[in-house]
């Protein structure tokens, strides 16, 4: 295979890996997909090394040939969760390896997948808030608490994503989200009788809590992907701490004003 074709295949494989990694796929899935795509182009020696912040791929052909060994590096800056894109890329790579689509078509399809907008923002905010507030209901929140948690949760999502769009660092976004939740909970518990503030706060910030990130971090570490495990763990700890700082600052201020104890 000549170098032009190998370059095209590599770009395709890296692009697929990038979309997977950016949208929260597991490390092993990204590595498997890239190496499968490269092997389908008869590169028998394919080494892939994926961390949450970058992809490294090296390919070579078996036997005597004039081509060179090639290595590509791709830097990944931001990560979120979008399961639909993972599902679509997975499906596309399956069809590509089976030979149902050619490289040009697959590349076009990949671009369409990358640009697909997903659910509209208000739907994400409202349904995410609903799930989040119901989480509080599962642990014994009454109807009023559920209502305030829903309200707070939608506000938290809006605050965090609007600040993210204004390119504040993630630490500040999550801190602001936690502060908004705590503020609304404090006001609600002060004004409306029968509303416990801890249920409202937990129900509101659970949209931000990195539960999935923690689980993935431990899972990667157990599976032997130690670097991605540590990196994801660090990310999760930083997110959790920033939420706690936001919530804690508001609660502590409120305590200083009114007196009393938290636990």
């Amino acid at each position: 295979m000549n170098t032009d074709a190998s370059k095209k295949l590599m770009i395709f494989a890296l692009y697929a890996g990038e979309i997977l990694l950016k949208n929260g796929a597991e490390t092993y899935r990204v590595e498997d997909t890239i190496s499968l795509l490269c092997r389908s182009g008869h590169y028998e020696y394919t080494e892939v090394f994926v961390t949450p912040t970058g992809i490294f791929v090296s390919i070579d052909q078996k036997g005597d040939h004039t081509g060179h060994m090639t290595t590509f590096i791709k830097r990944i800056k931001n990560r979120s969760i979008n399961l639909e894109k993972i599902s679509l890329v997975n499906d596309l790579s399956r069809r590509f390896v089976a030979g149902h689509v050619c490289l040009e078509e697959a590349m076009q399809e990949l671009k369409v997948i990358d640009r697909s907008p997903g659910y509209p923002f208000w739907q994400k905010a409202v349904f995410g808030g609903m799930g989040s507030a119901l989480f509080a209901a599962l642990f014994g929140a009454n109807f009023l608490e559920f209502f305030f948690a829903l309200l707070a949760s939608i506000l938290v999502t809006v605050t965090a994503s609007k600040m993210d769009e204004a390119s504040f660092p993630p630490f500040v976004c999550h801190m602001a989200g936690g502060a908004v939740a705590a503020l609304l909970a404090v006001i609600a518990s002060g004004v409306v009788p029968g509303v416990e503030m801890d249920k409202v706060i937990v129900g509101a910030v659970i949209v931000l809590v990195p539960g999935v990130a923690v689980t993935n971090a431990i899972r990667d570490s157990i599976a032997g992907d130690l670097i991605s495990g540590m990196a994801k763990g660090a990310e999760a700890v930083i997110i959790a701490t920033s939420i706690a700082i936001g919530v804690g600052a508001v609660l502590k201020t409120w305590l200083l004003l009114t007196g009393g104890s938290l636990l």
Partner: protein
Amino acid sequence: MMILKELLIVNFIICGFAFLFNAPLSSLPKAGFGGAMGWLAHLGTVSLTGSVIIGSFTGTLVIALLGEMFSIRDKKPMTVFIVPGIVPFVPGFGLYNTMLAILEQDYSMAASYGTDAFFVGLAIAFALTIMLSINTYRKSKKQNRQMKKERESDKCVETTLSESS
């Protein structure tokens, strides 16, 4: 009746988070169903053993098993069903209490709540890893069988070729 209500709530939680995580619309009912079954297993285990950690373990095991079945049937990656499914197990209140204890400078309470929350996370990850390794084993066996078949058919072609020549 209580249990039915909880299962319904869990179902809606998962659907809500599935929207947040942009899961494909067709996977929503299945993810919700798997999560509800997982929560049922969680409730059963907790009432038997009294430990939320073991409960989270069995619950996740059920979710991962059902997620794998759905992923084989629908040819969708397992993550689509599992990531929203494990959300109800996330130790939100445990983490919140840890934070409150740290604010109150009651560090032994913080360690106790924090360890509990950490072990729930560990239990979820363990269950997922176990299910995933079984899945990988099954896949590699299937691949081996396929390769063997291909090799045999290749041999057949070769022998017929040599015979004909």
